[in-house]
């Protein structure tokens, strides 16, 4: 039985890795992946705590998050697609026509 703090640490680490990816990667797809990592960090928490508290709420919610993450990626990919069409690149820092 692994104590729940370790799950918390694990999820925090994954969350931070995802965040780090977002902050450093310029490719839109990496961006998407990083977001997935962060969402999954939340899932780890939910599952772990669900197990600790002995209710299923967390586990069920993690499924919702997974599903929504998929939907989000679907929309995201669509946007990345039109980004590529308009700017010829998937580098998110290239699109700077709107600023200030």
């Amino acid at each position, binding site marked *: 039985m692994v104590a729940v703090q370790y799950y918390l640490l694990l999820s925090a680490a994954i969350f931070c890795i995802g965040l780090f990816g977002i902050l450093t990667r310029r490719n839109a797809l990496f961006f998407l992946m990083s977001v997935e990592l*962060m969402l999954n960090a939340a899932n780890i928490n939910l599952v772990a705590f669900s197990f600790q508290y002995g209710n299923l709420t967390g586990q069920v919610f993690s499924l919702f998050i997974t599903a929504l993450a998929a939907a989000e990626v679907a929309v995201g990919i669509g946007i990345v697609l039109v980004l590529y069409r308009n700017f010829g690149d998937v580098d998110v820092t290239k699109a700077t026509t709107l600023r200030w």
Partner: protein
Amino acid sequence: MAGLTLPVLQTAPPISDWVAVAPVLLLGLTALALFVVDSIDPDSSNSAALAGTAAAGTLLALVATLLLLAGGVGQGQGGALRLYGGQLIIDGMALFFTVIFTSVATLVIVASYDYLRDRVYQAEYYMLMLLAATGMALMAAAGSLATVFVSLELASLPSYALVAFMKDNRGSVEAGLKYFLIGALSSAIFAYGISLVYGVTGQLGLEAIAQQLSGGTQLVGVLGVGVLMVAGGFAFKTASVPFHFWAPEAYEGAPAPVSAFLSSASKAAGFVVAFRVFAVAFSPEAVAQSVDWTLAFWLLAAVTMTVGNFAAATQDKVKRMLAYSSVGHAGYVLIGLAALGGGQDGLVLGASMLHLLVYGFMNTGAFLFVALAEYWEVGRTFEDYNGLGQQAPIACVAMSVFMLSLAGIPVGGGFMSKYFILIGAVGTGHFVLAALLLVNSALSLYYYSRVLRALWVEDSDGSVAIEGYPLGLYAAVVGAAIVTFLLLPGVFLASDVATAAASALFA
């Protein structure tokens, strides 16, 4: 709305769950109906039918909501209807906000009829908008963090697509990208925050969380991080600093009706969940000792209104100015959260709700006027608007009403709600926030009056001639102006409901 003047205090007669969620269902079903129509006839260019269907749906939902409000459903102390095991809560606040969403959606859809002429994928457009509205209506009624998250995503995902709707337009696409990326990041943070709160309490239901927290907790730090991350999720939705970065770009790049929809309805949706989650789940009495989130909102309010207004002051483009001003207004509304626990909870929260309602009309109207200008292709900067007042006086009078009302000058309900917020800030002893509101308000008067100046004072250089007075856009703009104006003398119609609904949260 005359029947609304007196909130019904006793619990409304039990009604069927279906009736209570009728507005949400109506919105969702209209979206599905459009989906079906589009599936059957994907190349339909009968925009009147599409817009008409969509508008009928939102209008029906609006009427349903008003009927529910008038019937006193879910209102009064302890009268909230808890559906599906408390996952949805239908009460005064939920209905109040549903009125905002459906009104804004109606206006935007009516305006879009002209704006979208000759464009493809119209059915999808209306469908996305209706889905987003459904999500927002659900947000208003969400009774657990799970429904909050799901409904928030339901509102957000169509919005991303709507912003990037003009997929051949670099601005629109860029706006969509930024909105989506920041949104994805924020929802990840939000989800993580929920997981932490769940970790501390083992609950997702708002009232259950409150119950758990009232017993105290050892994991103060974890809870605090969780609460603030949840706040971050709402901050994204409401375009509050530091989660606001998407807003100026998204509002500027998006088609103007979409900007109107997002800046009014979407913002209100973010606030309604924030109100409910923070007032119910993390109620100040339960967590104020350890997690002083009113301080967090105090800071957010201060920074948000300052950044929004200062940045708006020197913009060149009207739409971007409106975008930043929208950030500023988020700051004003945040005062309602920051001032909770000061002994005037019903008043301050009611003032914020009222402001969101008025804002729903005046800001939507302002963006729709921009849509009108885009329709006329007069250009986007202040200078491009020069002398429009002579060519399109009615629309420009309406725009003037919006601007003045946004600035808090008494030609519209914005005056009342803004000063109600100020009263709330003063009444809870938040003199610094009041002073900041003062400074920002002055600045906002400056930039709003630039629009007035362009419309009425400056002379047109004569290069632009307006062709046509599109019926839908005009109807929406003028309608919004009339409601904005009527909300000044008729503010009691809304304010009593708002204050009562807000007070009910703290029962």
